[in-house]
């Protein structure tokens, strides 16, 4: 099994979710995260005092899939999340050793 993790622009979440539903993905986990990459933060000025905000808000998506689906999921996310501007985010894939569905106790690919 694989875990596909994507960090994307928050307003692209709906597009990515829709693209994954088309692929038949059964579930995913979304978190609000902050970070920085090549997209620098911004400055804010309050009563003349300048603050540098260098952590940018992003959305992180985690999807668990069986091995053959991983590439298709990655492609779907990249296509849906792309704006072509700096700060579009990253997608990466990691191997998952063990997976258990809590309700039934199913293990491995059956639990995806």
């Amino acid at each position, binding site marked *: 099994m694989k875990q596909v993790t994507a960090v994307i622009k928050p307003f692209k979440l709906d597009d990515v979710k829709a693209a994954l539903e088309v692929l038949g993905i059964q579930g995913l986990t979304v978190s609000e995260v902050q970070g920085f990459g090549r997209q620098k933060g911004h400055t*804010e*000025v*309050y*009563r*003349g*005092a*300048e*603050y540098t905000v260098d952590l940018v808000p992003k959305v992180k998506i985690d999807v668990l899939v069986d091995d053959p689906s991983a590439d298709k999921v990655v492609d779907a996310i990249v296509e849906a999340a792309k704006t072509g501007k700096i700060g579009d985010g990253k997608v990466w894939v990691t191997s998952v050793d063990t997976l258990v569905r809590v309700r039934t106790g199913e293990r491995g690919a059956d639990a995806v």
Partner: protein
Amino acid sequence: MVDNGYYSWMIVATALVLMMTTPALALFYGGMTRSKTVLNMMMMSFSAVPVVGLVFVLWGWSEGWGADGVGNSNKDLIASPFKLFGLHDVSPANFIYVLFQLTFAVITVALISGSIADRVKFSSWIVFQVLWVTVVYLVIAHNVWAGGWFYNKFPNLDYAGGTVVHINAGVAGGVLALIMGPRRGFKKDPMKPHNLTLTMIGAGLLWFGWYGFNVGSIVFTSQGQSKQGWGSFAAQFQGETGVTFLNTTIATMAACLGWLVVERIIHGKATSLGAASGIVAGLVAITPSCGSVNTLGAICIGAIAGMVCAVAISLKYKIGLDDSLDVVGVHLTGGILGAILIGFFGTTSSPQGKDGLFPKGGGGLFYGGDSTLLYHQFMGVLFTIVWCGVFTAIIGLAIKYTIGWRISEDDEIEGIDLTEHGETAYDLDGRSSGSLGAPTSAYAKEGVPA
């Protein structure tokens, strides 16, 4: 002097000024602090109502005004603190004037708290309030408003409290910030405002309440009193409130725009905090001057105050003074501008001019007068700064070396809301709720029968 219409207005005006402290100023200040210190900031304002309010009723009115009426012209530094203790011998028909002045004392003290945000023991703040009102506020109020020593020497114009309220609070705030030192991490850690919507609501409510503050500060003149019946009072009441209401409004508008223009030029953006701050700067500057200038004068005073204060608030970083929420930059600067600019824009065709309150030299320098008015205004500012500066320093140092001002470094980093009040302001996602402790756990310790 008591007419039904005027009396009803004073009841409303008094309630409006109380609203300026609770909740308007608490919201204005609270939004500018960090999310871990907002409750303490609001409590510093809220606590001024009971503490200063009770002091004012017990000996405040007696010390500052000392009369069963609007003042006692004894030409001394103070009236007697004991003669009318607890409003003894003040007739109920005059209670509304006592209460109106009470709300001014309350907000002046609450204003100071903005200079010393996030770092003060709540108990020390309570002790300070009692001492400061007694030694500083009531003395200045008596000397500027109630016929005391200073006014007899230099009859300066302060319609609603540019010296008594704003310069006074600004000086006290600056002196206290100097004595107790900056917040941990000042100029290093980010301390940006946590909720500017609160600040915008607070600024709007302050503006609304300020009509009670300025327009309610009408005093009927001895000229008016010598005439017969309400008719002459009605003429003064209507003419004067119209002018003060208009001047308060347009000066504030000009200041709001003035601040935004300066910000746009210096920092590139017109900000919401700039709009809120400009509104307050304009209200502060027109407070002493709303009864002594005409429409054009009010617009000029407002615009100057908005623009100058927008620059003045940056100075604290240069001199390293952690005047946390800019009480010096806005209230001291705006208060001085409002008081001094009367010496330029004051006109004898204004309400206070018609009331015969201008010196013999006539109006301000731009309105055909000589420098007498400017000189008196300057002396009023100087008197307030010196008296307030000296006695605030004495009180501030006395507290520093006895009960102490500051909470511990750990508590300050943890956040003063939690460490001084045992509360946190926000629990928006419910995840920090923790488990429900038995409400009586503090009283029924383990192994000890309840």
